[in-house]
């Protein structure tokens, strides 16, 4: 399976916005088709369903739907997109995600990095964005590349079961439920108290 995906590597860049959009859809289809395999090789049947995973993927993609100008992505809702090479896509982001995943769900704490397919930052079916760009979609292509890489890592079992559960199963609920409003107005002590005994 892995070599199939590897062979479907994204070409260096997309000439037009439409091409990038097509690629995004292609990636989405590819990811969805890999879900049964992923569930099998990572033994995920008892923790998540296919449709849940699929919706996680789509929500991730939709989450980045506002990225219209790939050169200078707009910042919205604190959702920072990488403009610099050490932006949101550094691999280090995953580590706190999977470790704090369980706690974050339980405590209702939403790390904004607790997201599914974080690197798969792609814009999609939003009609308002069907604008053609005549220049390189470098950021989009880069994110798309990262998305394929992530998918590949999962399929090659370079990522393990607990990574997936931490990031995409538990992290998914952290995505959906937003507890930030609940924690408003509480002191730092209480915030710390909910997360750990040691602060």
């Amino acid at each position: 399976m892995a070599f199939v995906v590897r062979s479907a590597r994204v070409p260096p860049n997309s000439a037009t916005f439409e091409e990038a959009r097509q690629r995004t859809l292609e990636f989405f289809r590819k990811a969805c088709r890999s879900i049964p395999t992923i569930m099998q090789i990572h033994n995920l049947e008892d923790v998540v369903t296919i449709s849940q995973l699929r919706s996680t993927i789509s929500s991730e993609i939709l989450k980045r739907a506002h990225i219209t100008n790939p050169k200078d992505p707009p910042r919205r809702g604190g959702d920072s997109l990488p403009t610099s090479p050490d932006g949101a896509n550094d691999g280090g982001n995953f580590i706190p995600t999977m470790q704090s995943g369980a706690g974050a769900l339980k405590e209702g704490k939403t790390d904004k990095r607790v997201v599914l397919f974080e690197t798969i930052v792609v814009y999609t079916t939003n009609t308002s964005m069907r604008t053609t760009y005549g220049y390189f979609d470098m950021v989009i292509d880069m994110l798309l590349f990262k998305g394929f890489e992530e998918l590949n890592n999962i399929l090659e079992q370079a990522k393990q079961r607990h990574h997936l559960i931490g990031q995409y199963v538990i992290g998914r609920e952290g995505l959906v439920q937003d507890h930030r409003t609940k924690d408003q107005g509480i002191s730092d002590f209480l915030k710390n108290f909910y997360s750990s005994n040691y602060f």
Partner: protein
Amino acid sequence: MGFGVLALRASRTSSAINRCFSVSRIFANPSNRHSRSIASTPELRNAEAAAEAPQTQEIHPPRTPLAGARVHFPKPEDAIEVFVDGFPVTIPKGMTVLQACEVAGVDIPRFCYHSRLSIAGNCRMCLVEVEKSPKPVASCAMPALPGMKIKTDTPVAKKAREGVMEFLLMNHPLDCPICDQGGECDLQDQSMAFGSDRGRFTDVKRSVVDKNLGPLVKTVMTRCIQCTRCVRFATEVAGVQDLGMLGRGSGEEIGTYVEKLMTSELSGNVIDICPVGALTSKPFAFKARNWELKATETIDVTDAVGSNIRIDSRGLEVMRIIPRLNEDINEEWISDKTRFCYDGLKRQRLNDPMIRGPDGRFKSVSWRDALAIVAEVALQVKPEEIVGVAGRLSDAESMIALKDFLNRMGSNNVWCEGNGVRPNADLRSGYLLNSSISGLEKADVFLLVGTQPRIEAPMVNARIHKTVRANHAKVGYIGPPTDFNYNCKNLGTGPQTLLEIAEGRHPFCSALLAAKNPAIIVGAGLFERKDKDSILSVIDSIAKLGNVVRPDWNGLNFLLLHAAQAASLDLGLVPESDNSIESAKFLYLMGADDVELDELPSDAFVVYQGHHGDRSVYRANVILPASAFSEKEGTYENTEGCSQQTLPAVPTVGDARDDWKIIRALSEVAGVCLPYDNLAGIRSRISVVAPNLLRVDEREPALIHTDLKPDCQQKMSTEPFSSAVDNFYMTDSITRASKIMAQCSASLLSKK
């Protein structure tokens, strides 16, 4: 041998003639061929000759005394001067040679000698050379005489040590790799430091049948070197005549004379004093090696004495507890409950906040939900229906937080269990051990009222035992029949006897009046009695009669039962109403497992905050998991008024939180936020209420205010005193969860 020496000589002599000569010399001396020398250094092979030869004495700089050895001169004219390795040392008369060497900073190897036990002088390891003495002398048993010239690093002394060590190792098994003492074994260390590198013993080693000393002490008697430290400890400190020496010569063994368990509450200390692996801890057997353990110096909370302990932990686990030296509290002993309760820290732990659902089952929830529910209910009930009870093991920080929280909610019904109704929190002298634990040694008459120190506070009992042994103090006891390990006169069982003494009709009065420093010890079990005030006023009159409370001596003592009691009274945890439990609608139990919950209304909402699923959990509606004493930093005040702090040795289990943090978080959720966010903040709050709690490791004596007490008009009942502690081994939630303590109470208490 022959070839080795040949080669040696050959290398030294170059000419062939010389070589032939040396070979012939070797063969001419047959004894040279057959004797194997034990001494590792050549000059020791003929120690006497070497000693006579003029030696170039190395000059060491003067050393500092060993292990904080102090010289105390009771009478300055008794000071004598001895010379240790050529250096003059001034010591008081009556010190032994070994002590003189310690003051001089020279470490003498020893096995049988222990500074707190009588001198046996049977291991012979401490042999030193004394000038003008024909033989090496056992320094632990030899009194130092003026002008004595002691030599500790001469060939004679070295040879003597090597020889003794060889004899000791002759019958000692070579099982260090499977011995629990390995790594902290005196024999191992000293054989490395002072022993030879080979032995001449080729015979079969003796073996000794292991003795069953009960569930705490494991015996491997083959390893025993007959130092008799354990025998002396049992008779002199623990006060039981269980252990003894049987047989002579190679048939010598330590044992209980008949097949019998060691029934002492201090039996675990023989593990520490055993210099080899003959007596080791049974629960700790094969669990860990001592070099893997992380030591945390903290204090014990299983009784009110606050013994100084060291918690040895590995990773997340407490592996063992051993005593720490504190001359004022526990010397270097601890009770078995302190030492072996640690497995209770790993069982029956509460690790998640839980809420009891409508079906009566507990369900794990998040802290957020649990605190929200507790706060919601607390805000619904009337303020006077809110009641808080602190448990036996609570630290001062969490108790002040609980009190502040309840006060902010509008209630003042907060107390600590064990203090009884309307406790006397106004005068510190009314609940402390006023003459201090070490001060008990000055007393010459004891009157124990309703207290059984042997099971309530074994370390205090050990002091009384020490005093009785040292100056034959008389002990009178009023209370239910119980065991004493010293000579004690049972005067009666109830308040009637107290009245007789107060009125001077009792024969014990003459002893009390004749005493120089009489000590009355009142048990905290009396605090629970209805006629507490009248009993205490009778005791006050006895104290006046016997002149017990003087400016230079305060002998009126109260022996508390629980670690939290003294601090709770210092902090003023006194309930507003006497029957608050009966009218409570919201009951906050902070580790309180021994509260009578029978009279609690059935619709009351009970919050249990604690670390063990013990008794009160079954009545609780919400469970908030807290950390145990080994997992938090907390201040405790012991029964003599000395405040000490615990330190976290291991992390908390599961989702548990520190006690004061839970209350602080709850107060915020309930909308009455407490003003402290960290330990420093909460301690500055304590400094307002009871500043003495912050002077750690310092005893704050109570001021004497005997005249300030109001007169009591209460009628005294004739009901005899009852024992405050039924089972020594199981007194709180930790010890009740412990399997070892359960074994102890099954096997040791049934024998009595």
